């Protein structure tokens, strides 16, 4: 079992959500975050001054799935979240040991 943590552009979230749905990936947890990548956000020029807007609003999607589904989820997110410009985001794959459903107490590994 893996947790897929994808940090994407806020404005791409609806597209990503729909793309995932069409692949049958429904369950997810979503958080509003701020972030910057290695290129350090966006630099604006203003009257000869430079201003860095480094922390931009992003959406973090967390999805826990069986190992078998990881590639589908990753590919779906990459395809639907991409614009080709800096700031498109990152996906991290994190191991999950087990998962428990609160309603029933049942455990999945």
């Amino acid at each position, binding site marked *: 079992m893996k947790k897929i943590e994808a940090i994407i552009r806020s404005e791409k979230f609806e597209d990503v959500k729909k793309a995932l749905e069409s692949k049958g990936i429904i369950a997810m947890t979503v958080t509003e975050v701020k972030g910057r990548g290695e290129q350090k956000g966006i630099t604006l020029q203003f009257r000869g001054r430079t201003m860095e807007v480094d922390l931009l*609003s992003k959406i973090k999607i967390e999805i826990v799935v069986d190992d078998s589904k990881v590639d589908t989820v990753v590919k779906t997110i990459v395809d639907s979240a991409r614009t080709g410009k800096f700031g498109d985001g990152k996906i991290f794959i994190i191991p999950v040991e087990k998962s428990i459903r609160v309603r029933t107490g049942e455990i999945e590994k």
Partner: protein
Amino acid sequence: MNHISAGDTAWLLAATALVMLMTPGLGLFYGGMVRRKNVLSMIALSFIAYAIVSVQWIVYGYSISFGPDIHGIIGSLKYLLLFGFYHKVIGDVPALIYVAFQLVFAAITLAIVTSACAERIKLSAFLLFGLLWTTFVYDPIAHWVWGGGWLSKLGALDFAGGTVVHISSGFGALALALAIGKRRGFGEYNMEPHNIPMTLLGAALLWFGWFGFNAGSAVAANASAANAFLVTNTAAAVAGLSWMFASWIKEGKPGSLGFVSGAVAGLVAITPAAGYVNVSGAIAIGIVVGVLCYNMMLFRIRKGLDESLDAWAVHGMGGLWGAIATGIFATRAVSQYTGLIYGNFHQFIVQILAASASVAYAFVVTFIIAKFVDAVVGLRVSEEEEYVGLDISQHGETAYT
């Protein structure tokens, strides 16, 4: 020196304050509708529009609007800086409060136009655009209708500014939207209002201030003001419900945003008519304008037009309907003027003529000004500035931490 009525002056002082509050109210109304990263920009545009006009008006704006008429086209520069105005009286109120009352009208009109350039205009460009717009669009139309210009000579009725304020700003906004172009991502991404309670608060302040706007336009505390007050409220309430029901039927959900948009549309439509119609007329005007403006908004969206906060659909089309409706529902029960329901076809035609001329003038001249400003300083921010939002890129601020 003529006699001053303390009662009438008291009302005009209060009314002017009420109308002043409408401009930041509009800023909040619009500010709630934009994305979080542009809310300060949106509110600031209203404040700055207000400030630009405040200065322009006392320097020369009042003079070219209300100064001695030159060929029905424009006022002269005789009242520059209002020299000697302290002792003047207009009607039976001190001239200076009349000037102030007219000032707050001019100010909000420019603020309405900011709808069209939401989330993408360069602040410096707006400063220039605003000054030109109020000078070359608002002031002439104000002169034509209220300052003794050709439309007033024609007999066009516009009690509180359906034409002067709402048609000019609504169709001006349309032209500006076309000139500046769509927001990036418009039609692609979600651009949902970031704070609807802020918009509802703004709407409340608009409604509140509008009593000053319409009932103040009687320039007296009399029966005409009382009538204007009540029909204003009636049209707003009816139109709010009318838009709400229209969207309920069509979309299955009556939004709170729909209710207040309808209410504003009702306020717009009753504006030219407030001194000429009674509550029955106001009900009719309100029902129609709610459904009309709602559909104009849908039409605007269908056409992929990014007149971002619907000044055209609400103020432009609502003002147009109000101007025409004045020519329909004007009744002898309220004033000497009559409309179509009294068989007065003439007034009806005059209303259409005056409104059409203003539509055309506002649209064309706004477009020219916008293109000019674009050529000179550039209307739009860069793609990256738009992406990070105008609050940071134009003001160096973040609205909420």
